C-alpha cells in the first residue's frame, strides 16, 4: 500500500510539471516578444572575451582597446548613447553562448564583439542567426567562421590570409624544402593546409606536417623531428602565449644555428610577448596584418594612447581587432542614422572601408570577412626593444579560403 501512495505522488508530480510546462511556456514567450520589440535610446554593445584561463591576455588587450576607442571617439553616435558591456567567458564555449544569450535577451544588446577562440565564435553563430544580431569576430582566426552565419563579420584576420603570403615570400627567397609545425586545432590546421598548398604549387616540397597537441609541456620531440628533416625552413603557428616557450626550445635545440630558417605567422612573435621571448626571436621572419611598429601617424597615435591608458602595455593584433571592431560598429551606425536593427546594420557594414591603424581595410561584402594588407616582418631591436619591423607589403589580401571557393 505504501508503494501505491508512492506511485500516486509521483504521477501527481509529473502531471503538475507537464501542465505547468505548457502554461509557463506560453506565458513567458509572450513576455519575451514584448521585451524584444521595445525601442531603445541607448545602443548596447556586448564584448565577450576570455579574461581568465590560458588566453586571458586576449581578453585584456581587447577590453583595453575597445574602451580606448570609446574614450577617443565619444560615447554617442548619430544621437544614440553607446554602452559597452564586457563579459568573461573563461574560454568555455557553453559559457560564451550563455553570456551571448543573456546579452541579447536581458540587455537587448544590438551587436556582439569579441570571441577569443574559434570554438567560442562558432558557439554563438546559430544564436546571431536566430536573433538577427550582428556578431563581429575580433580575435578568432579560423577561415570558415564567417560562413556559419550571415550575421558574422570579422575584423581580426584569417590564418590563410597570413600563411599564403608567408609561403609566397618563402618561395621568392629560395625556400624550397619546408617542415610545418602547428598546434593541433582549427587555426593551426588552416595555417598548415594553406601554407603547404602554396609551397607545393610554387614548386617547393613540404617534407613533413607536424601537429603539436594543444596541451603540450615539451616541444623537444617535435623540434627534433624538424632538425632531423633539416629543411630550408620550418613554418610555425602556435597560439600566442605558447610563443615564448617554443622560441626558447627552438634555440635551446640549436636550430637557430643549424641554418634552418624559422618563418611563422605573427602569432608566434606576438607584440605582447616579444619582450618576454627575448633575443632568441631576433631575425625571425613572419607575416601578419599588424605590428605595433607599423609606420603610420594613426598607429603612432594609437600605440601611444594605448600605452598611456594601460601603464605601458604594448597593443598587439588582438587589441587592433577589437579597436577596428568598434570602428566598424560606429561607422555602420553613422550610416544607418543610429538605426540598430540587425539586418540594417549588416547591410551597412558590408563593403565598409576605412583607414585602420594597421593600414587600409575593408569588409568584403560577399564573405563579410576583412580585406587588408599583409606585411612581411622581421624581428629587430629598435632602441632597446624588440619589434616586428615590416619590410614588405602585400596589398589588399582577401581571405584565400573563400576566394578559392569561387
Amino acid at each position, binding site marked *: 500500500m505504501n508503494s501505491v501512495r508512492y506511485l500516486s505522488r509521483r504521477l501527481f508530480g509529473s502531471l503538475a510539471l507537464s501542465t505547468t510546462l505548457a502554461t509557463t511556456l506560453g506565458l513567458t514567450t509572450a513576455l519575451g516578444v514584448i521585451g524584444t520589440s521595445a525601442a531603445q535610446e541607448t545602443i548596447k554593445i556586448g564584448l565577450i572575451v576570455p579574461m581568465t*584561463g*590560458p588566453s*586571458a*591576455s586576449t581578453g585584456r588587450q581587447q577590453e583595453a582597446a575597445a574602451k580606448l576607442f570609446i574614450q577617443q571617439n565619444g560615447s554617442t553616435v548619430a544621437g544614440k548613447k553607446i554602452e559597452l558591456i564586457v563579459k568573461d567567458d573563461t574560454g568555455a564555449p557553453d559559457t560564451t553562448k550563455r553570456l551571448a544569450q543573456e546579452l541579447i535577451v536581458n540587455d537587448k544588446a544590438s551587436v556582439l564583439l569579441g570571441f577569443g577562440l574559434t570554438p567560442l565564435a562558432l558557439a554563438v553563430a546559430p544564436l546571431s542567426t536566430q536573433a538577427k544580431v550582428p556578431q563581429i569576430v575580433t580575435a578568432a582566426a579560423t577561415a570558415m567562421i564567417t560562413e556559419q552565419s550571415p550575421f558574422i563579420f570579422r575584423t581580426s584576420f584569417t590564418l590563410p590570409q597570413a600563411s599564403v603570403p608567408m609561403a609566397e615570400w618563402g618561395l621568392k627567397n629560395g625556400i624550397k624544402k619546408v617542415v610545418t609545425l602547428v598546434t593541433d586545432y582549427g587555426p593551426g590546421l588552416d595555417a598548415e593546409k594553406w601554407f603547404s598548398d602554396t609551397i607545393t604549387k610554387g614548386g617547393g616540397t613540404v617534407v613533413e606536417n*607536424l*601537429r603539436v*597537441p594543444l*596541451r*603540450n*609541456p*615539451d616541444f*623537444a*620531440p*617535435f623540434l*627534433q*623531428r624538424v632538425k632531423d628533416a633539416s629543411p630550408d625552413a620550418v613554418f610555425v603557428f602556435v597560439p600566442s*602565449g605558447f610563443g*615564448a*616557450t617554443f622560441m*626558447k*626550445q627552438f*634555440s*635551446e*635545440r*640549436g636550430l637557430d644555428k643549424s641554418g634552418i630558417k624559422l618563418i611563422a605567422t605573427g602569432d608566434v612573435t606576438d607584440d605582447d*610577448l616579444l619582450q*618576454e*621571448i*627575448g633575443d632568441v626571436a631576433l631575425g625571425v621572419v613572419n607575416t601578419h596584418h599588424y605590428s605595433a611598429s607599423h609606420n603610420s601617424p594613426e598607429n603612432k597615435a594609437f600605440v601611444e594612447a594605448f600605452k598611456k591608458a594601460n601603464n605601458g602595455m604594448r597593443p598587439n593584433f588582438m587589441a587592433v581587432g577589437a579597436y577596428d571592431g568598434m570602428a566598424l560598429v560606429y561607422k555602420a551606425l553613422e550610416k544607418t542614422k543610429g538605426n540598430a536593427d540587425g539586418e540594417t546594420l549588416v547591410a551597412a557594414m558590408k563593403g565598409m572601408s576605412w583607414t585602420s591603424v594597421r593600414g587600409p581595410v575593408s569588409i568584403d561584402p560577399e564573405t563579410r570577412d576583412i580585406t587588408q594588407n599583409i606585411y612581411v616582418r622581421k624581428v629587430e631591436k629598435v632602441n632597446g626593444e624588440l619589434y616586428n619591423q615590416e619590410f614588405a607589403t602585400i596589398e589588399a589580401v582577401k581571405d584565400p579560403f573563400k576566394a578559392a571557393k569561387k
Partner: protein
Amino acid sequence: MVTILFDGIAYGMLLFVLACGLTVTMGLMNFINLSHGAFALAGGYVTAALTQKAGLPFLLCLPLAFLFSAVLGMLAEKLLYRRLYQRSHLDQVLFTIGIVFMTVAAVDYLIGSQQQSIHLPDWLRGRLDLLGGSIGVYRLFIIVLCGVLALAIQWLLSHTRFGSQLRASVDDPRVARGLGIPVNQVFAVTFALGCGLAGLGGALGADLLGMDPTFPIKFMIYFLIVVTVGGTSGIMGTFFAALLLGIADVAGKYYVPQIGAFVIYALMVAVLILRPQGLFTRGGSR
C-alpha cells in the same frame, strides 16, 4: 636515437624531482596532496625573480628556490596540512585542490598571468655532440643534478637515522612515539624536504616547461601519474616511473606523433590494471 632517449631522460628526471616530494607525502605519509605543484610554482617564481630582477647567478638561485619552497612547505604543514593526516582521502583532495585554486588566482592577481622567463648562463646554453647524438647542455646539467639528488635522497632514506625514524613513524606512528621518535617533527621535516625538491624542480623546469600561474594545475596530473605508476614503496619506484614515462612520452611523440598524447595516459592505465598498487609496492601493505 640517442638524442630522443636523452631528452626523454631529462624530461623524466625533471618529473622525478618535481614528483618525488609527492611520493613521500602520498606514499609514505598516505596524504594525497594535490597542491604539490604550488611549491614548484613558488620555486620557479623565486628563481625568475632573483635572476631577472636581482640578477643573481642561476646556480645560486637553485638552492635558494629549494630553501624558499621548503620553508613555505614547513609552514603550510604546521599550520594546515598536519590537521588532515587523519582525515579521509576525499577531504585531503578537496582541501589541497582548494589551496591550488587560491594559489593560482593569488599569483595571477599579484604577479600577472604572463610566462616567467629565466635567463640561463651562457655556459648552460648551446649543445655538444655525444655518442653520435647532439645534446643540450642544459638537459645534461639537469640529468646529472637530478641523478645525484636521486641517489642522495635514496641514501638519506635508507642509510641515515632520519630515514629509519621516518620509516618507523610511517609504519606505526604510535609505536614510533613509544620508541621516543619525534614523529611530528619527522613528518614536518619530510614534508618540507618534499616541497623544497618541488621548488627546485620548478626552478630547473621553468625554462623547459614554462612557468605561469596555472603551472600547479597543468602539471598536477603528471605528478599524480608518476607517483601512482611508481607505486608507494618509496623513492626508487618514482624514479623509474618518472624515467619510464618521460622517455615513453618523448619517444611516443617523436616516433608516432599522431598518438603521442595518448602514450603517457595509456601507459598509466595499463600499469595500474596490471599492478593496482603501482610498479613497486611495499609487500602489498595498503
